[in-house]
């Protein structure tokens, strides 16, 4: 491939893949079965120049390659306030990745849009939350591929054989024991966003296995945990005893070795972490946003139940993918959502592009990832709460937050 017999674009991609393999000390490359491409999100003209160079050189992906969010809502263009020339660059970038043969999924939750690699399958995924989900929840094998590497792996079908592609690097080294926390707390969705935030800040480059969590942790809770942990830290893999596929038992997750460290979580520690996710004590709210990672059908169902036919004074912006939008249409839920004041944003989300009318204010969210990135990317301070808190606050038109669920 390096010699150009696969075309100039493949040769360019192969130079980057092999150079990164050398940097990482990989002895060989491994075939990968799918890619998830984050490079389609606009950050500057450099990304456009890179993608258009691959297109101009005849690039075409060689494996199924789903696309992450872009900076535009292509179905509701008026909802994104990005101005030219950035708007034009963002569209050119999205077009370039479609021209390279990627699938226009435009979602950060490809694993809920039908792209679910199997246990032990080697893949090359980018988007930090998709990486941690694929590794942890599906047991597929990917490193935390950055922008550009994702498309280079997609063009060549190869990745350096290193890191989490190798069995010996996937075992847990630290046990996080949650048996000191109440079952009531561990059944709430919001707990998992907070747990993830704590994990990311404290685990460094070790791999954690959680013990003592209920065996019925939902997929959306694991999604929230992973996304939070990959925002506050560099987590690419975690295990949950009795839940995730490489942790049927604690001993198996630890490869039958003693843990380097066992950390016992306390309710006080979790409450402190929850408080860290908010950057203001304001009860005035300018916006409420959910859906990072992209909201699932199950999460929309929960939201509709919580709103219970009431109307929001502050609209709730729900970020989601086209795959969910289609299902909402089929279920005839769009009218109910619209009447309640839930505003759908697809193909993108509120922190990766300009959606809010103002460049400062207060955002309420149940997403650990939004809570982490909102202040720097949107200028909005954050009030963090559960989905129920978000729904109640939207209806009241000001902050309403239940404290009772935190014991």
């Amino acid at each position, binding site marked *: 491939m390096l010699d150009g017999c696969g075309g100039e674009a493949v040769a*360019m991609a192969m*130079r*980057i893949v092999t*150079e*990164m393999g050398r*940097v*990482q*000390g990989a002895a060989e490359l491994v075939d990968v079965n799918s890619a998830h491409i*984050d*490079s389609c*999100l606009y*950050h*500057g*003209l*450099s*990304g456009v*120049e*890179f993608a258009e*160079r691959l297109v101009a050189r005849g690039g075409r992906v060689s494996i199924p390659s789903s696309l992450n969010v872009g900076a535009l809502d292509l179905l509701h263009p008026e909802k994104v306030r990005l101005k030219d020339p950035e708007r034009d660059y963002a569209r050119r970038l999205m077009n370039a990745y479609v021209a390279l043969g990627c699938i226009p999924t435009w979602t950060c939750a490809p694993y809920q849009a039908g792209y679910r690699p199997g246990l032990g399958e080697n893949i090359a995924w*980018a*988007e*930090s939350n998709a*990486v941690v989900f694929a590794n942890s929840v599906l047991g597929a094998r990917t*490193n*935390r*591929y*950055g*922008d*550009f*590497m*994702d498309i280079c792996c997609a063009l060549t079908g190869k990745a350096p054989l290193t*890191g989490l592609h190798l069995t010996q690097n996937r075992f847990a080294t630290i046990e996080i024991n949650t048996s000191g926390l109440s079952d009531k707390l561990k059944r709430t969705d919001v707990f998992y966003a907070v747990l993830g935030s704590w994990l*990311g800040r404290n685990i460094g*480059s070790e791999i954690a296995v959680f013990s003592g969590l209920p065996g019925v942790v939902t997929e959306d809770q694991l999604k929230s945990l992973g996304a939070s942990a*990959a*925002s*506050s*830290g*560099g987590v690419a893999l975690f295990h949950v005893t009795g839940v995730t596929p490489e942790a049927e038992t604690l001993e198996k997750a630890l490869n039958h070795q003693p843990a380097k460290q066992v950390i016992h979580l306390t309710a006080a520690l979790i409450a402190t972490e929850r408080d860290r996710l908010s*950057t203001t004590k304001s009860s005035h709210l300018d916006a409420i946003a959910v859906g990072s990672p992209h909201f699932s059908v199950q999460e929309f169902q929960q939201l509709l139940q919580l709103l219970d036919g009431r109307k929001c004074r502050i609209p709730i912006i729900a970020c989601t993918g086209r795959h969910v939008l289609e299902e909402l249409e089929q279920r005839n839920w769009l009218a109910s959502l619209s009447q309640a004041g839930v505003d759908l944003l697809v193909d993108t989300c509120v*922190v990766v592009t300009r959606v809010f009318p103002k460049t400062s204010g207060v955002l309420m969210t149940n997403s650990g990832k939004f809570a*982490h*990135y909102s*202040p*720097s*990317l949107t200028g909005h301070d954050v009030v963090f709460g559960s989905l129920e808190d978000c729904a109640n606050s939207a209806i009241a038109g000001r902050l309403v937050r239940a404290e009772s669920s935190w014991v």
Partner: protein
Amino acid sequence: MESMQARVLLAGRARGPVLKLETDISFWGGVDPRTGCIIDQRHPQYGKAIAGTILAMYRSIGSSSGSSVLLELFRRERAPLGIILVESDFVISLGAVVAREMVYADIPVVCVDPAGFSALPHEVEIYPSGLISVNSTRV
């Protein structure tokens, strides 16, 4: 410290003031791709410029869009002159590798151990061999 030997991830030569990050950072959401300043308000060095420095950091965290932010910093000439890591960070190395491919810039990226990291002085020169020396021409 007069000099130390680093492990070379990307060879190159650079000289400049060291900006040592006190905690890890995500380039995406942590550094403004237009100005090269730290914009994460929770970061202790909020507001500092990484442009024109020898950036010393344990590793990057967070988003895999970090490589894009770094590449844009190279295109705008707002990037660090060299990067000293403790862990061989994928997202950072990738941004630098792609910058070479796009002929935007050609900076050294090297790794040192935690003791070496702690001992880094205010100004250094990185050589293609991985040697890091205190800059004797410091003003």
